[in-house]
């Protein structure tokens, strides 16, 4: 698998004096010390990794660890302070507004924690949102929206409105909206965190199933190690704005980089990682799927 998204020395500093904050970071000061001295907040510090085509890359961390900021720098909902994001070798951080909009329409779509559906539009219209924005005609919008809704099992409610659906179904619409644009990269920001546990597991399995059928490159934000193990091909763990460890679920579980990483294991049955008896993610996730959907 080739690298799809490459993140190089990416920083985000919120506040009046980013240069000073980066200088202090290089001197080895912590996030809190820098805030005390300069009143600037370090969002993300020196993130540096590559996401491969077709993988589910989970970014994990506690709230405030910078994971949401990191994912928003990939499509520049948040402007990076320093560093680069390369999409298929093209520098996203250097794109002008027009190129950026084109990239968002064709290359990257996004799923949100609060679903962020438009209440005045029907399910089908919500699903077609990205297509509407990029100026496709109505017939095309409808066809592609229905196709995406079928993928998530919601074609029956295409003409309902979001407020008539349960949370899980609303997030399926959110997912369908992201799939409808046929963008190869999906950014999912705590996409299943607002759902109750049963529905959450169901959605995770659904995502794994979708990946087996038609692999997208997925950057998935989560604070839940259980979820990360279930869906992730690789996991990046963030602490205080820095990426402290990147690896497969097995690697993370068997060889945690520090106490912070280990603290995520609390209450998680890490033995699950080894079920299926194989080291590759694809074959690992298949038997679990069959258990979930007999």
């Amino acid at each position, binding site marked *: 698998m080739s690298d799809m998204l490459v993140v190089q020395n990416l920083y985000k500093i919120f506040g009046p004096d980013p240069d000073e904050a980066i200088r202090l970071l290089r001197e080895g000061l912590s996030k809190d010390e820098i805030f005390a001295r300069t009143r600037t907040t370090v969002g993300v510090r020196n993130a540096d990794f590559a996401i491969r085509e077709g993988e589910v890359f989970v970014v994990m961390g506690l709230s405030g660890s910078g994971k949401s900021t990191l994912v*928003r720098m990939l*499509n520049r*909902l948040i402007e990076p302070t320093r560093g680069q994001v390369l999409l298929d070798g093209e520098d996203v951080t250097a794109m002008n507004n027009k190129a950026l*909009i*084109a*990239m*968002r*329409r064709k290359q*990257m*779509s*996004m799923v*949100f*924690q*609060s679903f*962020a559906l*438009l*209440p*005045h539009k*029907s399910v089908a219209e919500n699903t077609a*949102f*990205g297509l*509407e*924005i*990029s100026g496709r005609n109505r017939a095309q919008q409808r066809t592609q929206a229905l196709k995406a809704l079928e993928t998530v*099992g*919601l074609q*029956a*409610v295409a*003409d*309902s*409105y979001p*407020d*008539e*659906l*349960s949370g*899980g*179904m609303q997030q*399926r619409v959110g997912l369908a*909206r992201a799939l409808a*644009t046929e963008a190869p990269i999906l*950014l999912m920001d705590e996409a299943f965190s607002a759902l109750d546990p049963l*529905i959450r597991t*169901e959605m995770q399995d659904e995502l794994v199933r979708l990946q087996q059928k038609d692999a997208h490159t997925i950057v998935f934000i989560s604070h839940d190690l259980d979820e990360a193990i279930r869906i992730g091909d690789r996991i990046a763990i963030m602490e205080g704005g820095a990426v402290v460890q990147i690896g497969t679920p097995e690697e993370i579980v068997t060889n945690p980089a520090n106490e912070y990483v280990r603290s995520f294991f609390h209450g998680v049955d890490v033995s699950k990682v080894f079920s299926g008896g194989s080291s590759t993610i694809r074959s690992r996730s298949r038997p679990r799927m069959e258990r979930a959907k007999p």
Partner: protein
Amino acid sequence: MTDGIPDYRIPVGDWVEHGVDWVQDNFTGVLDGVSDGLGLMIGSFEDALMAVPPLLLAAFIVALAGWRVGWRFGLFALAAMALIFGMDIWKETVTTLALVIGSSLVALAIGIPIGIAMARSDTVEAIARPVLDLMQTMPPFVYLIPAAIFFGLGKVPGAIATLIFAMPPAVRLTNLGIRQVSREHVEAGLAFGCTDRQLLLKVQLPLAMPSIMAGINQTLMLALSMVVIASMIGAGGLGNTVLTGIQRLNVGLGFEGGLGVVLLAILLDRITQSFGRTKRGGPAKARSGLIARIKQTFGKAKPGAAGA
């Protein structure tokens, strides 16, 4: 210094007078243009409403009230119309209605874009906010003086004073509505590649609509509350009836005029509010027929069952 009050004079009033004089001297053309345009608009609006046979217009209002709000309110509208005819204030009511709707339309045409600009720029908001405070807290009578100086007496200065007084809520609630659109909704719009314009038209304005409708409703109400005051510079209508009642100490006449204003206010308030509600929960409500219910139930049941 006498009585402990410092003895100096800042001639604020003089400055304002000079300012008004200056505007009058240098912008005669603009003022005349505004006067003609607004006069034409409100005049033709009134003429159009007057041209409709009174019973037909009354029937339309009753029908609108019944359809938008409910049959009970329809009955209320019917009684209100009967009362207005019975008090012989139909013409005054129509004049007032034309003035209120005309000046509100202008207020909204100016106010909503300003509200949008405020929502998109903190600088614009910082500048506009104190101006709005001034417009809202200045006693409305004060607007009558420059309005009368610039535009003479009659409907146009009345409309100008009314629209200045009535504009702030439309501006404020448009601004507030757009700013209250959740961060994730805005991000969703941007993440799918909205341009600024698309974000405004397809995400922000539709989501701000309930708030904007509340602003429109408030603007109409304020405009109506201004009509009595505006009648002091000859705006006419129900305000004139009230004013005559005051001048002659005629309690009955004053009350009739006042009651007319109240009835018109209730009708305008409920009917415009009903449009605000439609935008919010409309789609679900509109399909409350039996067949739609069944379809909805099945539509919900299927994926729900698959998910369980």
